[in-house]
């Protein structure tokens, strides 16, 4: 997700971290400071100070603990990131255990999203591991009174020359940790040819605890004296409590307290009535017994229909923010020998991780402690600190396992509400969202509507592409109006279209809505990939060109495409073309299929990763069955291939749910869906066979959590077109669409 980049404050007290983080005399702690952009100037100028932040801790018995600063939500960072450290540190993976970093943003680049963990941690973790290795080697050289150049590290020990001398790390760590920390920008990194771990399938360290019930998710946290809470929130977005009567709720067995919590605008909470009880069930029963009158506020008349009308008006005329302007699309459209028009539409989507939102917080007089299943524990810490009236460093946050995140768990709303309730209850409180709460009080993938016009010349070659888009803008929701750049978070994957079409124009117009929006797995790419890749297919069909052939033709010339004005990433058309070719080859593009079946292709660049997918579908009486999806992925060097494969598989299934099953719709200002009976997920009998192929690469690694998703819906809809001749432009599709 294009999450705001969190930078470490300049000098929040590193000594505090020392006290909490570096425990035990035999702990080797390598200090450095990183930001999402890798090394900051500030850090390079600062003398590296040993023992600051703890990446590597070696016990005297040789056991190694590696620190994980990112949050585990099933994407495998518990394994992939420590693999990088262990590689450079030259330790045996079997010696390694992994420990979650404390929530200390002055040391760690916390926050997990945007498929960025591997991409942004790769170099800093290599440097940290290599620096630790260099210090251990130096300690051994000192002990033996030899030149460090004659020593090397292998498998958790330092050896000298022809292995005449050998000292395990456990014997060296006390001395090594007292040595000066080398300049991390100059420390010698391993030659990739020497990698033993990186690039191999390492079983995920978090999996054993997920097959025996021992893994502790946020929902599973238990603290002595803990109470349970649920909150009644106004069903209409932005609504407030007018008055309430808790008499009946308080009579429910187990209910301890009923308390109104006010809105916290910084955390985007609307407030409500919290019911605190001695069990989750009692809290839920108590809430059922509440009598509440709501002030429904200004959004009570909003509906999906009113929003659609607004979108339609905004995209039906020029005047949106111009985000791409090559050549003169309008003139070229006027001169086209063939002009194609289409309108695409997608609804709001909820993240719906299997573990509903929850948080356990204990606000005390002088400090607070929290257990958060959070992608952004540092934001949760800030929110709790503000509510508790404490400095952030008095709030200890334990990041737990997450039963899925998908962007939703970056938010701090659940932490803020739990802090409010704990403060009122004078006890540790576990706040639980029911599934209905999770569905109806989320922060949704924006709904959007897209009008596209394309021009073809007499040979069927696209000469112009005009894309007018309107959506509920994420940046418009999160950023104060005077600073918001509504287009910036919405046009990725469309404004940087990689195809060589001489006249390209894209305009964006934000719509007004009371529906809270947020980053959802692959964010705007989830919609823009669908829209652009289906429309390109329409141009291929209109020009009577094979859809694969048209893509290859338009990506033939190697080019680098950047989105003006502020997108940092660059699309390399050669890499996009390569994944298209690989997916087509692996899928058997062009091989005949029986009647009723079809094959479709789509490609997309997002989060610095290139993915192409070929879908095969069978359409029977209006029902689309996706039989097979073949994905080709260029994510640079692959750290843990089986883990990366799982992420692409997951992105495809998540994308299929949005394409075939689920939609959040609004009526009278509220979400109409509540649970998995009306917000349906793909199930096993609907899941296709999935094959994932990686492009061999020595390029810097990039992420896989999100990029598998954007090509899925368009590959499927293009396959439906191939099977039926019907072009579906609104997701999710229904049986009626193909009737």
């Amino acid at each position, binding site marked *: 997700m294009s999450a705001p980049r969190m930078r470490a404050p300049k000098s929040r007290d590193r000594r505090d971290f020392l006290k909490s983080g570096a425990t035990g005399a035999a702990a080797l702690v390598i200090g450095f400071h990183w930001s999402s952009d890798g090394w900051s100037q500030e850090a390079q100028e600062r003398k590296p100070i040993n023992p600051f932040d703890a990446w590597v801790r070696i016990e005297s018995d040789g056991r190694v603990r590696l620190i994980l600063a990112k949050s585990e*939500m*099933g*994407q*495998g960072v518990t*394994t992939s990131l*420590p693999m990088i450290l262990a590689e450079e540190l030259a330790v045996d993976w*079997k010696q390694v*255990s*992994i420990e979650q970093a404390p929530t200390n943003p002055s040391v760690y680049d916390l926050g997990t999203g945007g498929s960025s963990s591997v991409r942004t941690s790769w170099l800093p973790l290599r440097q940290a591991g290599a620096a630790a290795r260099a210090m251990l080697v130096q300690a051994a050289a000192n002990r033996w009174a030899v030149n460090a150049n004659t020593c090397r590290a292998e498998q958790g020990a330092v050896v000298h020359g022809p292995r005449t001398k050998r000292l395990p790390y456990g014997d060296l760590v006390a001395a090594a940790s007292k040595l000066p920390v080398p300049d991390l920008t100059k420390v010698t990194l391993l030659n990739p040819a020497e990698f033993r771990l990186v690039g191999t399938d*390492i*079983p*995920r*360290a*978090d*999996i*054993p605890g997920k*097959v*025996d*019930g021992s*893994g502790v*998710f946020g*929902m*599973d946290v*238990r603290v002595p004296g803990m109470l*349970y809470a649920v909150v009644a929130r106004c069903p209409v977005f932005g609504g407030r409590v007018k008055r309430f009567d808790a008499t009946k709720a308080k009579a429910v*067995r187990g209910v301890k307290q009923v308390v109104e919590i006010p809105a916290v605008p910084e955390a985007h909470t609307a407030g409500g009535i919290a019911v605190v009880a001695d*069990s*989750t*069930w009692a809290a839920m*029963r108590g809430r059922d017994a509440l009598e509440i009158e709501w002030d429904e506020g200004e959004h009570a008349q909003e509906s999906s229909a009113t929003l659609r009308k607004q979108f339609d008006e905004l995209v039906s005329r020029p005047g949106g923010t111009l985000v791409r302007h090559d050549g003169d699309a309008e003139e070229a459209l006027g001169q086209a020998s063939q002009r194609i028009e289409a309108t695409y539409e997608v609804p709001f989507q909820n993240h*719906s*991780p*299997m*573990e*509903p939102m929850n948080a356990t917080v204990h606000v005390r007089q002088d400090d607070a402690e929290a257990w958060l299943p959070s992608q952004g524990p540092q934001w949760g810490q800030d929110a709790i600190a503000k509510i508790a009236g404490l400095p952030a460093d008095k709030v200890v946050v334990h990041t737990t396992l*997450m*039963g*899925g*995140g*998908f962007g939703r768990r970056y938010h701090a709303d659940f932490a803020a509400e739990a802090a409010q309730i704990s403060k009122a209850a004078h006890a540790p409180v576990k706040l*639980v969202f029911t*599934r209905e709460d999770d569905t109806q009080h989320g922060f949704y993938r924006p709904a959007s509507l897209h009008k596209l016009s394309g021009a073809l010349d007499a040979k069927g070659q696209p000469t112009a592409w005009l894309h007018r888009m309107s959506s509920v803008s994420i940046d418009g929701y999160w950023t104060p109006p005077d600073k918001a750049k509504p287009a910036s978070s919405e046009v990725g994957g469309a404004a940087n279209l990689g195809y060589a079409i001489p006249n390209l124009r894209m305009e964006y117009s934000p719509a007004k809505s009371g529906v809270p929006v947020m980053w959802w797995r692959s964010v705007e790419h989830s919609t823009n990939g669908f829209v652009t890749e289906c429309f390109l297919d329409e141009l291929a069909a209109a020009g009577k060109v094979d859809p694969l052939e048209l893509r290859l033709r338009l990506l033939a010339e190697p080019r680098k495409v950047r989105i003006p004005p502020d997108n940092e990433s660059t699309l390399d058309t050669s890499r996009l073309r390569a994944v298209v070719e690989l997916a087509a080859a692996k899928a058997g593009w062009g091989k005949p299929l029986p009647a009723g079946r079809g094959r479709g292709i789509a490609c997309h660049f997002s989060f610095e990763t290139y993915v192409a997918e070929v879908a095969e579908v069978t359409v029977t009486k209006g029902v689309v069955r996706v039989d097979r999806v073949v994905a080709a992925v260029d994510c640079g060097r692959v750290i843990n291939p089986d*883990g990366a494969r*799982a*992420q692409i*598989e*997951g992105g*495809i*299934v*998540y994308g299929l749910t949005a394409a075939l099953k689920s939609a959040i719709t609004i009526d009278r200002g509220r979400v109409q869906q509540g*649970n*998995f*009976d009306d917000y349906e997920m*793909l*199930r*096993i*009998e609907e*899941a*296709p*066979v999935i094959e994932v192929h990686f492009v061999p690469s020595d390029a810097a690694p990039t992420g896989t959590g999100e990029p598998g998703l954007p090509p899925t819906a368009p590959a499927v809809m293009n396959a439906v077109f191939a099977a039926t001749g019907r072009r579906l432009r609104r997701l999710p599709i229904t049986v009626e669409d193909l009737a």
Partner: protein
Amino acid sequence: MAQITLTVNGKAHAVDVDPQTPLLWVLRDTLGMTGTKYGCGIAQCGACTVHLDGEPTRSCATVVEDVRGRSITTIEGLSADRTHPVQVAWIAEQVPQCGYCQSGMLMTAAELLKRKPKPTDADIDAAIGGHICRCGTYPRIRKAIKSAAAHPSRPAAGGGAK
């Protein structure tokens, strides 16, 4: 309020709760056995699946009064040391992602294999079709069930980071 006695993983427990409380919350909140998960509360997702006298049962939609004196097995009781064939297969095939739904998946898969030692794809669909995995581990679940069927007494792999 009368106490209700139930047997969980072979051990008898007497609990003093509202008899209408779903078994799920008795397991999680009263007995502190949190391996059984809350996902939907309406028997739609399967995350709360336990064995009730050997039958896969949605504990979120089963009131505790109705399990009085009956035998309940939860994920914690599937094996003492992750050696049940489905657990071994789940690790071998690297099935879980977030893992939240997997307790329920494993309980259903274990019972399926007991009933049908060589399940077909249709058998797997019928059994797992009542479960939801938002991370999309379905292809690996299918593979793991077949793998467990092929290796009913495979030893667990060891080693590696913890």
